[in-house]
C-alpha cells in the first residue's frame, strides 16, 4: 500500500482482543490484529507460503502464526521466524476508538 493518507477502518471493537480481521483497502487485503495489550498491528493478509489467511492465525505480542502450516512472522517487522519470505507491515494506530491505517 503506497497511500500516505489515513484510512479509517471503523471501531477497534470490531476486532476482539487477541484476534485479527481482514480489511480490503485500495484493492489490498490487510490483516489488522488487536493485541492483548490493546495495541494494533497491520500486515499483509495473505501468507506468502501457501496463501493462508493470516487474520485467522493465532498471535501473541510479537508474532502471528499462519493457521495452515504454522509458519510464524514478526508482527512488527514482517520478518519470518521460520525461513519464509517476509510479509508487508503497515502503520496503524487507534484514535478515539477507531482504527486508522496509514501514516
Amino acid at each position, binding site marked *: 500500500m503506497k497511500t500516505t493518507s489515513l484510512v479509517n477502518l471503523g471501531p477497534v471493537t*470490531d476486532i*476482539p482482543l487477541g484476534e485479527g480481521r481482514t480489511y480490503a483497502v485500495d*484493492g489490498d487485503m490487510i490483516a489488522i490484529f488487536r493485541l492483548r495489550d490493546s495495541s494494533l498491528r497491520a500486515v499483509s493478509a495473505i501468507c506468502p507460503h501457501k496463501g493462508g489467511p*493470516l487474520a*485467522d492465525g*493465532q498471535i501473541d505480542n510479537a*508474532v502471528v502464526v499462519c493457521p495452515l502450516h504454522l509458519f*510464524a512472522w514478526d508482527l512488527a517487522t514482517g520478518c519470518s521466524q521460520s525461513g519464509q519470505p517476509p510479509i508487508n507491515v503497515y502503520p496503524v494506530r487507534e484514535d478515539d476508538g477507531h482504527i486508522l491505517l496509514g501514516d
Partner: protein
Amino acid sequence: MTQKLVVIGNGMAGARTVEEILARHGDFSVTMFGDEPYGNYNRIMLSNLLAGVETEEGIFLNDLAWYRDNGITLNAGVKIERIDAAARIVHDSNGGATPYDKLIIATGSYSWTPPMKNVHNPKRGYHQGVFAFRTLDDTRGMIRYARDHERAVVIGGGLLGLEAARGLQNHVSHVTLLHAMGHLMERQLDPKAGQMLQASVEGKLGINVITNAMTSEILGKDKVTGVKLADGTVIECDVVVIAAGIRPNTEMVANSGLPVERGIVVDDQMRVQGHEDVYSVGECAQHRGSLYGLVAPLWDQAKVLADHITGTSGVAYTGSKLHTKLKVAGIDVASMGLIAPEHDEDEVIVYNEPKKGVYKQLIIRNDVLVGATLVGDNSKAASLIQHFDRGTALPEERSSLIFDIGGAVEESPEDMPDDAQVCNCNGVSKGAICGVVAGGCGTVSGVMDKTRAGKGCGTCKPLVQRIVEWANGGAAEEDPAASWYVPGVPMPKSELMASIRKYRLTSVSSVFAKLAPGGEDAKSKMGLASLLKMMWGADYVDERDARFINDRVHANIQRDGTFSVVPQMKGGVTTPAQLRKIAEVAEKYDVPMVKLTGGQRIDLLGVPKEKLPAMWADLDMPSGYAYAKSFRTVKTCVGSDFCRFGVGDSTALGIALEERYQGLEGPGKMKLAVSGCPRNCAESYVKDLGVVAIDGGRWEIYVGGAAGAHIRKGDLLTTVGSAEEVIRLTGRFLQYYRENANWLERTYAFVPRIGVDRIREIVVDDTDGIAAALDAAVEEAVQSYQDPWKERAEPATPGQFRTSLPLIVLPQVPVRS
C-alpha cells in the same frame, strides 16, 4: 560497578565459561592468560587435524578477533606463576602482576609420560622423534616429523592413543599401538568389548596392537630407532607418540596454597573450597571427588559458574553422568556407566557377533539402565543414553533396547546426501537442517521451529534428531523445553497443573501473566486452553483468541482458507431423511465437494467461513467434530444386527459411546471404533480406543492403537462382560489420558510411555484408588457438553464468521464431477 575478572587458561573450559558469562551480560572487564600463543581451539579436533580431515582454521573456536570484539585482554603465551589469593593478584612469567575481583582457574591437563628410560633428551626436552599428543604445537610437530619417516609407535591404547594411531596412518606406512593394560579402552569397555575393538582395529585398519605392553625404554641415540618393552621385545620405529593419559595441571595452584587433592577442590557453585571469589572449571577441577575429562560436563560446569558469578542464586552443579558416543579410529563405540555388573541381582544382557565386529552389553539394575557398552554399531546409542541419563523405565522386551525389532533400519545421517528430503510433509532436506545447526541452533526443537521439519505428521522426528546430533558432532544440545507442556511456560504438565490450581488461574491470559517468563506465547495458547477447559469445566474463562481458528468457528480450515462442515452421524448410522437434508443443504450452498470421511461421516468441503452459521441452521444437526483436539468418532461395523459373523451389537455400542463422549476435549484427537467380531471390519485394533466383540458376549478393549502417521496395534487393556463396562472403562481411560498425556501426545505414544500394565492397574484394577475420581471427572465433562453449532445465531465475538480470505483467487480445492 565493573569487576575485574581474570581467567587462567584459554582452553575449551576457560573460553567456554567466558562465553557463557558474556551471554548473561555479566558486568566484567575480562583478562585471560593462556600458555599457548593462540586464540582457543577445539582440542578434540586435533585427531582430525592429524588425520588430515580438518584444517587448522577449522578447529579454532574463537580467533583473536573474538577477544578484541568482546573487549577481552588476552595474554597468549603468558604463564601464571603464582596466585596471591590474599591480595587478589596473579603473578605471571613476564613479571607482571594482575589484580582481580573474581578469578577463574581453567588450567586443564597436561599429557602424562609414563616412566621409561631415555624419553627425555637432557638438552631438548623430548627425544627427537618423541611427541606428546595434547596441543596444536604437538600435532604440528608430529605431522612435520612423521612425513619423512616410516614406522610409528603409539604408547597408550585409550581413546587418544587410538585416534593418534589412526591419524598417523595418514603420514607413515606402519603403526604399532602399545597398551599397558590387558585390553583397549579399559576405562570405558569391558574385556570382551575391548577385544572386539582390537580385532576391528587390526583387521579393518591394519594397525598392530600389543596389549600388556609396558614400554621400558626409548632406543636410539640422536634419533629414535625403536622402543623396548619390559619383556625384552624390541619394536623398531622412528616416531614415538605418547598418549598414555592426562593429569590435571594443578602444580602452580597447589604451590599458591589453594586446596588441591587430585584436582582443584570446588563446591557445587564451582568455587574453590574456602575461597569466595576463586573458581575452577574443567579438567583441572575436582567436584565431589570426581574429575571430568569430557566436554559435556565441562559445558554444564561452565553454565553453573556463569549463572552463579552473574548473580543467579540457587544454581548448583551436582555432577555429570558420563557417556561417550564416538567413532574410535573409524569404529563406532559408545559407553556409559558401569562396564561390568557389581551386584548379583544386576541384569546383564549381551549380544556378540564377532565376525561383524559387533558387541553390545547392557547392565540393568532395578529396571534402570546403569551401564551400556556398544562396539561396531551405535544405532541405538542415542536412546540408550536417554534411558541412562534420565533413569526412565525400560521396555519389558529388553532386546528392543539393542535392536530395531521389525522396524525399519535407522538411516545414518552421515550416509545421506545433502539434498535428501527428511521431512516429507514440509519438504525439508538434510542440508537445510545442517545449515540451521551450523548457524548456531543446536537443539532439536529449535531446528524444528526454524525449518518446520518434523512439524507435519511427525514421523521423521527421530531422524531429525539424529541429524541434529550428527551435525552437532555427536550430541544435540540439551533442550530444557523438551519436558514442558507448552513451549511458553517452563513447566512439565503436573507442575503446571499444580500451579494453575494453586493460583486458581482460570483463563489462558492469567496463566501467561502468572507463569510465563516471556509473557504471551501464540504457540502455547491452544494447549493451555485445552488444559484449562479440562481442569475447570464450567469455571473456565473462555478467551476466544486462545483457540485455534477451527475451534473459533467449529469447522476444519482447508488449504484454500475455506472450511468443511461435518454433521454428526453417530456410529456411522444415518437415515434417508438426514441424507436428504444434507443433500439439499449441499445443493443450496453450492458445496464444491461431498465426501465420505475415514470416520464414517459426510464431509461438505469448501464452505466459506461466512456461510457456516446459515448452513448449520439449515442442517439443524449436531456438530460431528471433524476439527479440535477432541473425541472424534466411533467407527463401527454392522455387527450382530445383519452380519452373519457378528457376535456383538457393535453399532449400538458405538452409538452409545459417541452419544456419551461427544466433543470431549483432550491433549490430542481421540478416534474410537467398535467391531462386532474379531474380523475387525471397523479397524478397532488401530484406534485410540478400540472395542472388539468376542464370542461369549464379551468385549475386548484395546488402547493406544494408530493407523495414521504412525501405525501401531493397540494393547489389550482388558476383556469385559457387558457394554456398560465398556462405556465406563472407556470414560475412565479417556479421563486418565486427558489428565496425564502431554499436549498433542496421542495415545499411541502415551500408552507405551506409561505402559499398558500400569494403565490397567489404574483404570481396571484401581490400585491407586483414583477410579472413582476419574469417573466423576469425566461425568462432569459429559454433563457440561454443549453443541458448538448452536453458537450460530449470536456470534461469540464480533466478526467471528467474517471472511479472512483475500479477494484474489487462490488455488482451489479441485472439484470432481
